[in-house]
C-alpha cells in the first residue's frame, strides 16, 4: 500500500511533503516536551527497525497470503514517535527496495503516519472510554480499534489518492463506485490487522507491559 513515483502530480507530492513536515514538527514538539526525550530515541529507533522487519511477516491465507502494514500497532506502541518511525521506515523502503518512492515519500508518510497517531490516541483512551470494561478486554478492544482503524483510514486515503489521480478520463460516478468497491474489499484486511494487533498487544501486556507504557 505504497504509492510509487510517477503516479501523482508534483503538486500532490509537494502537498504530501507539507503535511508530513507539519505532522513531523508536531510529533517532535510533543517528544521534546517529554522529561528526557533523548532517552526514548534508542528505544524508538530499534523498535522502528523491528517494525520494519516485522512488516515482512505474512499471514497465510491459502492459496495466497496477507501482508501486514502494522501502522496502527506502531501508533499503539510508539506514541508520538510513530510518525518519525514511519517516515524513516518508508525512507528505507524507498531507498533499499524501491518500494514507494522519493517524490511520494511525503504522501506515503502522511497516509500511514496520521492514522498511526489516530491509533495512538484511540489506545490512550482505553482507561477513560473503556472504564466500564474489565482487563484484558479493555486493552484488547482498544488495540483492535487502533489496529483496524490504522489500516482502514490509511487504505481509504490510498484509494482516494489513486482513483482521483490516475485516470483523468474516468467519470465521477465510476470513480465513486471504484472507491466504494475497493473500500469494502479492504474491510477484511482491516479486521485481520485489528485481530493481529490485539493478539500482539495482549502478548506484550502479559510478557513485557512496559513497552505499552511509552
Amino acid at each position, binding site marked *: 500500500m505504497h504509492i510509487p513515483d510517477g503516479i501523482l502530480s508534483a503538486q500532490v*507530492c509537494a502537498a504530501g511533503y507539507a503535511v508530513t513536515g507539519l505532522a513531523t514538527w508536531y510529533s517532535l514538539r510533543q517528544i521534546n516536551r517529554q522529561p528526557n526525550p533523548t*532517552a526514548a530515541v*534508542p528505544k524508538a529507533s530499534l523498535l522502528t527497525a523491528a517494525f520494519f522487519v516485522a512488516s515482512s511477516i505474512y499471514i497465510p491465507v*491459502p492459496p495466497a497470503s496477507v501482508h501486514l502494514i502494522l501502522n496502527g500497532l506502531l501508533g499503539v506502541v510508539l506514541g508520538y514517535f510513530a510518525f518519525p518511525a514511519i517516515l524513516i521506515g518508508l525512507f528505507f523502503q524507498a531507498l533499499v527496495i524501491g518500494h514507494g518512492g522519493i517524490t511520494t515519500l511525503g504522501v506515503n508518510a502522511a497516509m500511514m503516519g496520521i492514522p498511526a497517531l489516530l491509533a495512538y490516541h484511540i489506545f490512550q483512551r482505553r482507561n477513560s472510554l473503556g472504564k466500564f470494561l474489565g482487563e484484558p478486554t479493555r486493552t484488547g478492544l482498544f488495540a483492535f480499534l487502533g489496529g483496524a482503524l490504522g489500516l482502514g483510514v490509511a487504505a481509504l486515503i490510498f484509494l482516494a489518492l489513486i482513483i482521483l489521480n490516475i485516470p*483523468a478520463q474516468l467519470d465521477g460516478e465510476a470513480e465513486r463506485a471504484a472507491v466504494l468497491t475497493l473500500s469494502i474489499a479492504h474491510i477484511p484486511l482491516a479486521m485481520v490487522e485489528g485481530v493481529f494487533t490485539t*493478539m500482539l498487544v495482549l502478548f506484550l501486556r502479559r510478557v513485557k507491559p512496559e513497552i505499552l507504557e511509552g
Partner: protein
Amino acid sequence: MGAAGLDTYVHRDSVIHRWSPRLKLISLVVLMFAFATVRQLALVPWMLGLAASLYGLSGLPVVFLRQRLSYPGLFILALVVLLPLTVGDTVLGEWGWLTLRQEGLVATLLIVGRFLSILTLGFILLGTTPFLTLLHAMRSLGLPTILADMTLLSYRYLFEIAAMLTTMQQAMGLRGFGHKRQRWLHINRQTMEQLAMLAGNLLIRSYEQSDRVYRAMRLRGYGYGARSAVGQRATAQPNTLSWGLTGVVLAAAVALVIAEGILRQGWMCQAWMCQ
C-alpha cells in the same frame, strides 16, 4: 530484504561519485520533482534520456537497476494492463471483448515514463553515495536531530534484527510451523497467534537491546551536550565539477518545467479553438 548489495557500488569512481553529496542530493531531488510535473507525452523521451545519461555517467551496472525494479514494478504492471483497456473514449483497436483506448494508453506511457525516470535518479543517488554520507548531507540541510539519530540507529540495527527474524522463523519451521495444510481462504487462528507472538518476541528483543544500546551511548556522552549521534561532519568545499553538474541538472529541471508549461498552454489553446 534485498539490501545486501546496497553499498556495493558506492566506492567506484565516476563524475557522479565525485559530485558533492549535498549538491547531488538537492539537484537530483529537484530533477525528480521536475519529472513529476511532466504531463506531456512529447517530454517523456527527454526525461528518460536525461535519467539514462546520468545513469551512464554514474558508471553503475544495468543489473543494479534491474534488480531493484522488480518489486515496485508489480504495481505499475497492474496499471499498464488496466488503464489502456478501461480509460478513454478513443478506440484504437478491438479484439473480442478487449478494447485498446488512446487516452488510457497515453496515461500509461506517462506514468511508466515518470516512474522509470524518477526511480533511476533515486538509485543513482543511493548507488553512488554511502548511506552515512547521505545522512550527513541531509543533516547539514536541516534534518532535525531526533530524526537523524533515529535514522542512523534504525539503519545500524536493521540488518541485525532482520537476521534475528530469519533465525526465529527457521526455529519455528524446524518445530513444525507451517507444515500443516490449511483450508483455502481460511485464516487459522492458531497460526495467526503464533505469528503475533513471533512479532511480539522480535519487539521485546529489540526493546531489551535498545536499553543496552542507550546505556552504552550514555557512557560515550550521548545526551550530555553532544547534540546528535550523527553530528556535523566538516565537508569539503564543492569543486568546479560539482557546481558544473549542479548547474546542468538544475537547468535541465527548469527547462523541463518551462517546456511542460508551454506545451500545456499550446494544447489548451488547440482544444479551445476546436470548440
